[in-house]
Each structure stands twice: as C-alpha cells, then as structure tokens.
C-alpha cells in the first residue's frame, strides 16, 4: 500500500492519482510465453527449478546435475530431472509520439495529455506485474529515453519524463525503438500521422522476432468532428501542407479519415499486432483497460463511437 501511494505521488499526485487508482489490480498478461529468465508474472517458455512441479524427465547428458531428483534416483535407480513451470517478466517499452501533431488542440493539448495518461497507466499496469518499464518519447526535439527498469518509482519517473516533454516538430518513430530488447513488449501510443507505414513494418519485425507490439491510436475529438467555421487547415508538422476546410469539405474529409482509420487498423492486425483506437476525450483508465484486454481480440472502435 505504501508503495502504491508513493507511485501516485510520483505520477503527479492528484491529477493521475485517480488514473492509477482506477487501474489497481489490472493485469497486463503477455500474449505469448516469454523467454526471460528473471522470475516474474508471465508464463515462461523455460522450465526450470521453480517450486511448482510440472513433470519429470529422464536425465540427459548436459543437464544440470543439481536438478536431478536424488530421492527418486534412490528409490527407482533412475536419474530423472525435476521440471517446473517457470514464470518470467517481460520487458515493456512504451513508445509515445511527441511530435507536433500530438499537441492538439493547441489550447488544451488534450491529445497529448491523453497519450501521457495512457502511457503512465500502461507503465503502472506493467510495473504492477514487476515488469521492467522503459520509455521512448519521440519528438522533434529528439528522443527522450528511460531504459526499462523494474525498481520502485519507475512509474513516477515515466510521468516526470513525460511532463518534461513538449510535443513539437516531426520525427520518424520507426527507427526510435530499433534497439528495443528482443521478445520484449512494445506499446506505441501515437496518432500515426507520421511514418505510419514504416512504423508498422518495424513493429511487424519485432513481432516476428517474438516480441509483442500494441498500437494505441489517439484521435482528438476535433479531428473526428472538425469545427464548422471556414479555416485554412495547416499541418502542424509541415506548414507547407495547408488546405481550406469549409462546410462543403466536411463530408469528404470525414469519409477519407474514416477510411484511413479502417485501413490502418486492418493493416496492423494483419501483421498480428494489437491495435486500439482511443478518443482523446475518453478516460485514460478506460483506454488502458482496453489496451491490456486487447490481447485476444482487437478493439477497433472507441467507446465513443460505440455510443
């Protein structure tokens, strides 16, 4: 309890306290057996000397003699190896998009704040399973990185690191997590308006190597329901891209944007990746619950659209 309180305080006190409280007890099971040796909460492909017996196997040359069940050898004169189900940790890297497109709407930055809440929530859920949690904030000002750690207070570190980041500029996210651990778990929180295709290909490679990738697509309410007045819409990451947005453009915009979201979700799932669409106005805890529960089935539609 004391540890939880310290995490709440480190994550921003009251502002994120409700988020962490809402995520208490939420588990984020690995989608597949992990290969790590460190003991943890996830099923490991290794069978070692865990206290929980799984089965016996005849001793083979090369097995560790210390794992021979000497009592059974004494009774049956046969050398058996004692096997047990191993549980391990999964290294979790949270990749957050800190480009200028996330700083929207400009007055409230709700898109960025929601992304931060999701990252902190996922970090808290992963840390609750004692998984090492790391952070990669990719923006125009560079990459802010926290290596995966399982120590106390890592959630607070993630929160503080995010608070220190101001989304700006443009950056390619695909290359940012090239050095991520093999067979680790990567959660990408982004609007996917940058190098979405390259990012998806890289995520597919990670998944093919035994890793686990979760895509959390953050969409602002204003993007789903643009303002009715006539504006000259400017891409915040590329000022040369500007188009007038008038009432007559609205229907076509909504059609194009919806089709793109459908294609994006289908492409990610076709790679065997997890994809979750989240609206910025949706509570962060709810988004986190959908992400961690999206292992088996994919949740394409946000709660807002379901209503």
């Amino acid at each position, binding site marked *: 309890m004391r540890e939880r309180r310290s995490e709440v305080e480190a994550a921003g006190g009251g502002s994120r306290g409700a988020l962490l409280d809402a995520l208490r007890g939420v588990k984020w099971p690995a989608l597949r057996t992990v290969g790590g040796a460190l003991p943890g909460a996830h099923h490991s492909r290794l069978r070692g000397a865990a206290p929980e017996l799984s089965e016996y196997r005849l001793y083979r040359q090369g097995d560790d003699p210390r794992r021979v069940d000497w009592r059974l050898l004494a009774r049956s004169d046969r050398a058996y190896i004692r096997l047990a189900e191993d549980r391990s940790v999964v290294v979790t890297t949270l990749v957050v998009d800190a480009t200028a497109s*996330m700083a929207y709407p400009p007055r409230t930055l709700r898109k960025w704040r929601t992304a931060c809440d999701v990252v902190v929530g996922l970090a808290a859920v992963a840390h609750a399973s004692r998984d090492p949690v790391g952070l990669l904030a990719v923006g125009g000002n560079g990459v802010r990185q926290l290596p995966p750690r399982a120590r106390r207070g890592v959630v607070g570190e993630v929160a503080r690191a995010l608070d220190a980041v101001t989304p700006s500029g443009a950056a390619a996210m695909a290359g940012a997590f090239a050095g991520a651990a093999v067979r680790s778990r990567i959660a990408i929180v982004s609007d996917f308006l940058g190098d979405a295709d390259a990012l998806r290909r890289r995520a597919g490679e990670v998944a093919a190597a035994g890793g686990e990738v979760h895509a959390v697509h953050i969409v*602002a309410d204003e*993007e789903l329901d643009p303002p009715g007045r006539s504006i000259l*819409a*400017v891409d*915040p990451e590329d000022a040369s891209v*500007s188009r*007038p947005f008038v009432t007559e453009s609205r229907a076509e*915009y909504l059609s194009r944007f919806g089709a793109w979201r459908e294609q994006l979700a289908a492409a990610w799932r076709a790679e065997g990746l997890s994809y979750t669409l989240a609206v910025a106005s949706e509570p962060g805890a709810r988004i986190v619950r959908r992400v961690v529960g999206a292992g088996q089935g994919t949740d394409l539609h946000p709660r807002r659209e379901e209503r």
Partner: protein
Amino acid sequence: MTFTAPWFAWVAAGVAAATIALHLLAWRRPPPSPLPTVRFAPERPVRMVSRAIRPADLALLALRVLLVLLVGFALAGPVFARQPRGTARVIVMDRSRAASVGATVADSARAAFQPGDALVVFDSLAREISRPSPDSIVAAGTASAVGSLSAALVTATRAAERLRRDRDAVEIVVVSPFAQEELDAATAPIRGTWQGPLRLVRAGRLRGDTLAPARPTVRGGSGDPVVATLALVGAVPGGAAARVVRDSLTAADRAWASVGRLVVVWPVTTPAPGWPRRSAADTAFAVTAIGPAGQPAPDSARRAATVVAPFVRASLPPPGRVVARWSDGEPAVTESALGAGCVRSVAVAVPGIGDLALTPAFRHFARRLVEPCGGTEVMRPAGDSVLTALLPSRPSASTASATRPERARATTPRLAVWLLALALAAGLAEMLVRRGASNAAA
C-alpha cells in the same frame, strides 16, 4: 447642377453601394488553424469567401466605385444651369403679302420689342435677325409672298429655347394680321413644341381690305381700243394705284410705281423698245390671263380670262412673273417688281379694227391686267376661335408631354462626354490594378 435623367444617378449610387458590400465579402485567405489530419481534407482553392469589417483592395474598390458613379452621372445628363435673368420675348413679325399694307404691323412689333429680345421676320420663309434693334424692324420691309406662320413658329421656338437658358421666362409674341392663308395643318403641332407662353398681336389690315374700287389711269390716244376697253371695265379694286401706258415706260412712271403702285406697259405697237423680238412674227389664236399664284386650283381656273382671237405675235415680254400666256404656252404678259410696286409688260397687240376690244372676254382680260401687283385676291382674316385653337397661349398637356423627349435630346451636355471619358480611364486603371494584384497573388 441639374440632371436630365436623375434616376441614372440613383441607380449608380446603388450599384456603388453594392460594390462596396461585395468588397466586404471579398475572396480572401481564411485564418490559418492547425489540423493534424489536414491531409484528409479535399483539395480546394486556398481562397474562400469571407466577410470582413474593412473592405479589401481599397484601390480596386475606389476605382470601381468611381467607374460606376462616373457612368451613372454621365447617363444622368448633368447640366450646369446658368442663373436666369429676367424675361425676354421673341418678336415674330409678319412681313408677308398679308401685312404689306400700311405700317401698323411694324409699329406694333416695334412697340413690343425691348433690348435683349429676339426678332423673327417671316413671309413664306422665316429668319431670325441677328443683333436686332427697332431699326431692324423697319428695315425688314415687306414681301409679296404669302406668309407661313408654321415656318415662323419653328424659327421662333428655336430662338426661344436659346433665350430660355439665360432667362426666367420667355414669351413668343406674334405680330400679324393673321390671314387664314398663313395657317396650315402643321401650325398647331409646331405650337406644341414650345412649352412657354405665346401671345398673338393682331395688327394691320389685310390686303383685300384696302383695295377700294377705282378707275385706273390710262395714257393713250383717242380711239385707242384699250382705252375704250378700260372705260367699259370701269372701276376695279385698287384701280387708283394702277396706270396703263400705251407708249413706253418713263422715269416718272418708274417713280410712281416704286411706291407700291402698278404700271401696265401695253404698247400700241410691238415690239416695244428694249423687249426681245421674236425670230419671226406669227399668229396666236388665244391668250389667257392665268389666275394669281397661291390661289386654290378651282379659284385660279374660275378667275382665268381667255380671249380667242387671231393675235399677231411680234415680240416677247421682258422676263418676269408670267401673268398671261398664249395658247401655245409662251408668255404674253409678265410682271416684274419695281420697289414696292411692279411693272406689268403686255405683249398683246390689240387690233384697232374690229370690236374685239369691246367683247366681254377682252374686257375681262383687261380687268385682270390692271389688278394690283400680286393679284387682287382677298386674304380673309382668321377668326379668334381658330387662332385660339391653333395657337393657344399655353400648349396642351398631351402635346407638351409628347414633345418633351425631343427637348431632352436636343440638350446634349458636354459634361456627360467628359464623364464618360473619365469612366473609360477609370475602367482601364481598374483593369491594370486588378491584373497587378492577380500577379502579386500568384
């Protein structure tokens, strides 16, 4: 400044206001606003219609408003009216045959005339006297032609319109005996073209009123057949102012005739001295004194006098107005003006033997030859009711409205031309500025 068609100016003002309003709704760039998903918006022109508190393109707006206003004011027909000063009259004086007796027409005209007035004199034609004065009225004299009040009114109306630009009021004053022969079907419509007042001054007496019957004077020998004929004819209208000479024309005869009298030169033997001779003498078997000019055809035929007899033709009368012709159309008697009077030359040799001179036909023929200059037709005065109907003091409303566009067309202000030229210049400038703005935007 006044306008001929002011509604053009109002329309131009409305169009200018609409132009300003359209500039407030000018195409302009909308305010930029970030939208991360802008790539999904359809491609459209960057400019959109939007309202603005301050009008855009002030130079273009000014040129367009100026162009519209200039065209509108030019079409409205601006006229700078001069300050009117007092009243003026157009004195229309009759100098035709109807007013050739006595001096009362000129006296009445001189009484009505004031400095600054216009003077129009007329007989069959009308003309305006430049720089008129009371002496101009006297110098106008008289003419033997039948007058035309229609022609006089056309000239007077033109002069009155010119005077009206500078005067408060203009009045046309017609001084005439007003014979019926001076009126025609065009008189009333022409009167309608003048919107101002018209005053009629009946002055003088008509010619027929003064031709008292008397015996003409005959200078001839005893036994002269013409003397006998005229003795049988007796008194004729205006006979006191007629003299028949059977010899040649003397200086005294000329002086006598030049003050409005008639001298009939009827030589006993032809050819008379100075008259053209015929190439060969022949015989004509009839001579006819034709009716006076200007008379209707039935009257002219009724008043013709024909004598059928063998006449020896040895000479031709001097050139002049033909009074009588031979049966083959050759002139037999001619008349030429001499001062205010005339000389009538008779190339008809009267045989001294026989009773031709005593026949009624010859007497009728001789009577025609001693009629006063220009004939003895009696000009009948037009009644007051006729004059009131044809020449009212004020034109009728229907006639005035029908003639108003003609007046408007007659005054083409030069200012309108300049305004249109300026509008053309503004249009060219607008085109250049617009092209420059488009290039700058591109």
